[in-house]
Every structure is written in C-alpha cells, then in structure tokens.
C-alpha cells in the first residue's frame, strides 16, 4: 500500500504531466468547439514546437550537457519559446487554410480522414527533416529539488505547472472578457449567425488554430525541461492522450480540457506509482472507455444537443 506522502508525491508529479496534456488538449477542444473537427495533426504541432525550440538553441551554440555552452539562459529560453509559439501558430493556420478549409462543407468524415492524413504527413516530413535519431534539448534551467511540505518536486516540474497556469489564465481571460473571445464563443454556437454580426468567421477560425498551436508549442518546449529527448514521433502518444483528456473534460469546453488533462496526468502518475509504469500507459484509454460509458458528454460537456 502506498503511504499518504507517496500518494501526494505522485499527485504532484501528475500535476506536471497533466499540465502538458492540458496545454495540448485546449487546442483540440477549441478547434472542435468552432469546427466540430478533431484535428488529429495537433499532436504533431506539439512535436514541432519542441523542434522549433531545439534548432534555434543549437544554432545559437547551446549544446546538450557536454559542450562549451551547456545551459540556455532564461531570457534566451523565453525567446526560444516565443519563436516556437509563432512558428507553430503559423503551421496551424496553414494546415487549416490548405487542408481543412477546402473541405469545410464536405462533411465531417472527409475532414477527419484529412486530419489523420496530415498527422501522418507531418510525422514523416519530420523524419525527413529532423532525422529519426533522437535529439537532446539543451538544459534551460539548473535542475534543483524543491521541498513543498510533504512533497518534493524538481524545479523543472514546478516551472511546467507555473507556466501552464499562467497560459491558461491568459486564455480564459481572452475568451471570457474580450470582444474577440465573445466572437469565438459566438462562432462555436453558429458561424452563420456570427457572420451576421460582422464577424469574419474565417479569421476567427485561423485565430483559433493559431492559439491552439501556440499552446501546443509551449507544451513542446516545456516538456523538454522534464524529458529532453526529442524524436519525430514524440507527438503521437501525448497527442492521443491530450485528445482523451479533451473528451474526458467534455470536448468543446476549455475548462473541461484543462480539468481532463490534469485528471489524466494525476491518475496516470498514481497508477504508475501503485502498479508500475507498464500500466500507466493504459490508464488514459481505460478512463476514456469509462467516461464514454458513464457520461458521454464528458465532465464539463453539455448533455445532449443544444436547443435552437
């Protein structure tokens, strides 16, 4: 049996893991909210975020661990993150423009299959461009342990949790209190009616992809603090799990995606602690099956269809 302290420790670890899921999951849920499309290429955007942080760091001469410039100073790390966010936002917007927009009226199945196709395409392009061998992200902070009451966390995990909280607060504020946020919520109800308000629906959709992709880029850079190993297929499992997290929370709901991500991370960590990491990989999918059986609309989802 686990001691209480050990359980708390796993919960704390799970918060960091879940933060990364949550950052990716908001991209799924926002796009679904507006287009009712599961953008399966979103996990690959997360992978690209990691590489878009990695390559500029290498160009600037920072090397993983051994080497003359081992550690990326904080201001540079911040700039790298912004760069990765901008690059991923552009990729997200381009994918929507080139792949999804021409299919906007073609039915949801065509768009879904296209999304899977884009995902495979991006994985393989990444294999060609970045090569199959793994890369190690240069260290961005000096790893130290921080003791917080009964739990002890590396400062990298604390940073992941802190940055995620900050990003989520910003996103909530934008969606809740700005006119653009209101336009996004309006589009998620009805694009037709939103256009009658003077809302340029295509621009809102582009913005939705840009924001979701930038959040995934942050996740890609953040996870490199904790697990610095980059591979072209690194987006696959986190992408799938973030999708599960979005469904858990109720797809279309931003708070739901955050809650689903955190929940999934915590449950995975706790199960990993109790039963070993072999089982923790399966947890996401067990949770998915359970939630689909008990509450198909998810934790924060609206049950049934909206009345018109």
């Amino acid at each position: 049996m686990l001691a209480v302290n050990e359980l708390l420790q796993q919960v704390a670890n799970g918060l960091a893991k879940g933060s990364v899921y949550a950052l990716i999951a908001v991209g799924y849920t926002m796009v679904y909210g507006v287009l009712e499309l599961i953008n399966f290429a979103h996990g690959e955007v997360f992978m690209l975020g990691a590489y878009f942080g990695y390559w500029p760091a290498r160009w600037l001469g920072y090397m993983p661990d051994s080497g003359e410039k081992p550690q990326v100073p904080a201001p540079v790390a911040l700039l790298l993150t912004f760069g990765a966010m901008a690059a991923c936002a552009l990729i997200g917007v381009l994918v929507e423009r080139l792949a999804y927009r021409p299919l906007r009226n073609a039915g949801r199945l065509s768009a879904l299959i296209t999304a899977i196709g884009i995902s495979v395409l991006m994985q393989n392009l990444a294999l060609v461009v970045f090569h199959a061998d793994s890369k190690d992200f240069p260290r961005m902070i000096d790893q130290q342990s921080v003791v917080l009451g009964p739990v002890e966390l590396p400062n990298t995990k604390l940073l992941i949790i802190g940055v995620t909280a900050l990003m989520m607060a910003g996103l909530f504020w934008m969606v809740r209190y700005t006119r653009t946020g209101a336009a996004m919520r309006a589009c998620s109800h009805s694009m037709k009616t939103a256009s009658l308000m003077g809302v340029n629906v295509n621009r809102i959709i582009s913005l939705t992809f840009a924001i979701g992709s930038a959040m995934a880029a942050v996740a890609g850079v953040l996870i490199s603090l904790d697990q610095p190993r980059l591979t072209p297929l690194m987006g696959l499992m986190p992408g799938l799990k973030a999708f599960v997290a979005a469904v858990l929370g109720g797809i279309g709901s931003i708070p739901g995606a955050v809650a689903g991500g955190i929940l999934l991370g915590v449950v995975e960590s706790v199960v990993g602690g109790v039963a070993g990491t072999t089982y923790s990989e399966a947890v996401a999918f067990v949770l998915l099956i359970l939630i689909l059986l008990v509450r198909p609309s998810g934790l924060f989802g609206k049950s049934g269809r909206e009345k018109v």
Partner: protein
Amino acid sequence: MALLEIEHVDVFYGAVQALRSVSLRVEQGEVVSLVGSNGAGKTTTLNAICGLVRPRAGDVRFDGQSIARVPTHELVRRGLVMAPEGRGIFPNLTVAENLDLGAYSRRDHGAVKTDLDRVLALFPRLNERMRQKGGTLSGGEQQMLAIGRALMSRPKLLLLDEPSLGLAPLLVKVIFDTIDAINREGVTVLLVEQNANAALKHSKRAYVLESGSIALEGDASQLRDDPAVKAAYLGE
C-alpha cells in the same frame, strides 16, 4: 437610386429552384414587407441579399454597388444587417455580450456606448437582463435582443425575418411599434412576415412571394384591399 435592388435573382438548393427571377427594390427610408406562405422563398430572398446563399443568376445591389460576391461580415460593416429567423441569439453569451457583438465591426467605442443607451431605452426589459445568458430570455425578450443587437451595428438597411413569429399578440404589437420607431429614426426596413395583416399595416410597399417568384407588388394599403391577397393571406 434605390438603397437595395434585386434583379432577376435565381437561387437553387441543389437541383431545387427556390427563387425564380425575383426582383424587388427598397428605397431609402421605406418599410417594405415581403409576405407569402411557408416555403414561398421569403427567407431565401433575405439570405440571398445578405450573402448567406449565393444567387446562380441575377444581381443584388446595395447603395449602388453589386454585393452578389461580398461576404456577409463585410456587408454588416457597410450597413446591411439581418436579424435572422429564429432570432439567432447566442444562448451561451450574456445579453450584454450579444449586444456588444452587434457592434463587432465598429471601432467608434464612444458612439457604440450612445447606441447601447438608445437600444436599452427602446427595450427597457433588456436593461434588467444584461448579465443573464441569452438562452434564458423569453421569446419576446429574445426578439427584442435580436433587433437591438442588429441596431448596434448602425444599419442603413435592416432585414427582419419573421420578427413576430411565436409571440403573444401583445408582444407582436410591441415589436411592430418598435419597427415604426426604428424607421422614424431613419433606418430602412425590409420585413419578412407570415403575419401579412400586421406587416401590410406597418409598411409602405409590399411584395407577395408565391412558390419562389413575385406574384404581386404595390402599395401596402392597396394590397390590403386586393381580394386575392385578402383571401390568401389575410384570412378574410
């Protein structure tokens, strides 16, 4: 020059022709109504004007310019606004947010505030509901919100699709009186109604649509006395 001119517009849904060579015009300052039975093509006509469906043939001109290819959101900026059928309230947004979205394309924030006060003076009921979600309003309040929201964009031409649908008689009167008031303030109105009686009473001219084409047109007062109109639409 008319504010709005539609010339020989054909609209198809797949293989089905919904509008056949529909022509109509709305002069600056008028209230014009478009009446007809269910499925005659009234809503399609409005949708073709504001770009939600595209005519296969014919032209739509607003303020002297062809708008047959102009996107809907751009038309709002130019002053052509529709309060859609079924009101189109965003149920997940508050009344205040719904109204603010009406002014989405405007950047003159001071004037927007003045317009908000005017709308709330027109519909005092909305003032008490500003923090409520749009979906919690009654049907009449939703219709007031839909019209108020459309006014927030400072329209030159307001398209109203079935504003009286599903409302109690007392509220129908309130809505039509409001349309008169809006028109007196200088907004031109094109009104689609199944309630032909009220629509003809409150408009200057009218068109009667039958199975996708214009069957009759003229002064509203004359149409009200027309025996065919009386029999078919006024229930007399």
